[in-house]
């Protein structure tokens, strides 16, 4: 398969074009160098200033969407230790987290002295989402370029659940573990606006509501939340504007007791379901759902091209996939 000679994007990636040197349009237009470094430094400074201004002496400063994976574990440590924030970790347990991920979450939050909320999703919800994702695309084409339908469903649920929780508890920031390049730099520190959040929520809620029905409502904002416009938090992705090196991230979180799970696939450090979600996605769309993210990490110099390719071509654990398929089989069979 032909791939970009600089990053790893394949010829099957929607809309990709290569120049005569075999370089994709994303690499051709990638901005790097001093201006990016300067913008990251400015964002770090602005975030620190906002955090100081918005600090809640009697509550939480920041709600962290905490998956238990390496990036969000590091994010929690970064906020608590380097920014001196008082975070609240929020986990959406989809029922398919690696047992090691659950251990890791406990170790990291205990080591940092961070409070931790876990919302466990009934497996029937995941079963219905999985069943539909096999039959037809659950989300817009662009959304499914960033990740598998199952992954994007969980991300959608946790995103709006985090917003809901932050508004209810008057927490001024919601932090996500976006890696550099995953989201445009200008979008890594913004104050959420009710009208836009309402429109964004509709795009996530409606496809899930069509599949799952009323059971998804508690994960999303209600009218009473939209009426509390002054409580809408900043959305922030500190990893995207902080120095990001895998070896430093691992050293930091391992010092908190975090251990890499051995039962997840090459692209996840918390969720077992990822491997099955990836397989469904590849079968339907003919590209790996991590293509975009890994190409971004290669472009940023965080992964070498060879490391990126290794993650994209790593084998699947057939036994694990079989077990997952069994667990997700419709209960009416």
């Amino acid at each position: 398969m032909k791939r970009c000679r600089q990053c790893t994007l394949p010829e099957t990636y929607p809309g990709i074009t290569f120049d005569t040197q075999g370089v994709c349009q994303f690499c051709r237009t990638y901005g790097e160098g001093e201006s990016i470094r300067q913008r990251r430094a400015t964002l770090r400074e602005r975030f620190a200033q906002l955090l100081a201004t918005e600090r809640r002496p009697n509550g939480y400063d920041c709600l962290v969407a905490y998956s238990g994976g390496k990036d969000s574990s590091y994010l929690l440590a970064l906020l608590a230790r380097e920014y001196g924030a008082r975070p609240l970790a929020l986990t959406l347990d989809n029922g398919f987290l690696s047992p090691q991920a659950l251990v890791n979450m406990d170790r990291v939050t205990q080591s940092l002295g961070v409070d931790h909320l876990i919302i466990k999703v009934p497996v029937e919800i995941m079963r219905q989402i999985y069943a539909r994702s096999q039959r037809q695309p659950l989300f817009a084409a662009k959304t499914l370029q960033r990740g598998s339908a199952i992954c994007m469903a969980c991300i959608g649920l946790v995103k709006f659940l985090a917003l809901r929780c932050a508004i209810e508890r008057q927490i001024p920031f919601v932090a996500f573990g976006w890696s550099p390049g995953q989201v445009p730099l200008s979008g890594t520190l913004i104050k959420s606006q009710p009208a836009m959040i309402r429109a964004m929520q509709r795009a996530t809620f409606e496809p899930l509501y069509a599949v799952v029905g009323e059971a998804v409502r508690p994960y999303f904002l209600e009218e009473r939340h939209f009426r509390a416009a002054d409580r809408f938090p900043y959305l922030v992705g500190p990893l995207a504007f902080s120095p990001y090196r895998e070896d430093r991230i691992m050293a930091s979180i391992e010092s908190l007791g975090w251990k890499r799970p051995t039962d997840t696939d090459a692209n996840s450090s918390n969720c077992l379901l990822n491997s099955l979600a990836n397989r469904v996605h590849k079968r339907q769309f003919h590209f790996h759902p991590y293509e975009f993210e890994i190409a971004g990490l290669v472009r940023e110099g965080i992964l070498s091209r060879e490391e990126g390719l290794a993650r994209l071509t790593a084998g699947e654990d057939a036994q694990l996939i079989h077990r997952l398929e069994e667990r997700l089989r419709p209960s009416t069979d």
Partner: protein
Amino acid sequence: MVSEVKHLVRRFICENFIVREEDFTDDDSMLEKQIIDSTGVLELVAFLQEQFGIPIADEDITPDNLDSVERICAFVQRKSNAIPSTAMAMASRRTL
């Protein structure tokens, strides 16, 4: 100016969100039609800032400003008027 902005915006949407010209009108809500998603909004904002050199504040990120091609063009126009000659200069510097 308006037609040039519209051309650049439509081209960005087609190329970045993988839709065809005939898939959306200038009045269509791109969020309702699921052409753009939440991350797509951030990509659109980054594009407008870069392409037209306009500052976009957090409070500007609303459907009223960004949810259709018509609204985006009007928004770019308003922002450009606040910074004379910027948008024209930026737009004309780039190849169509």
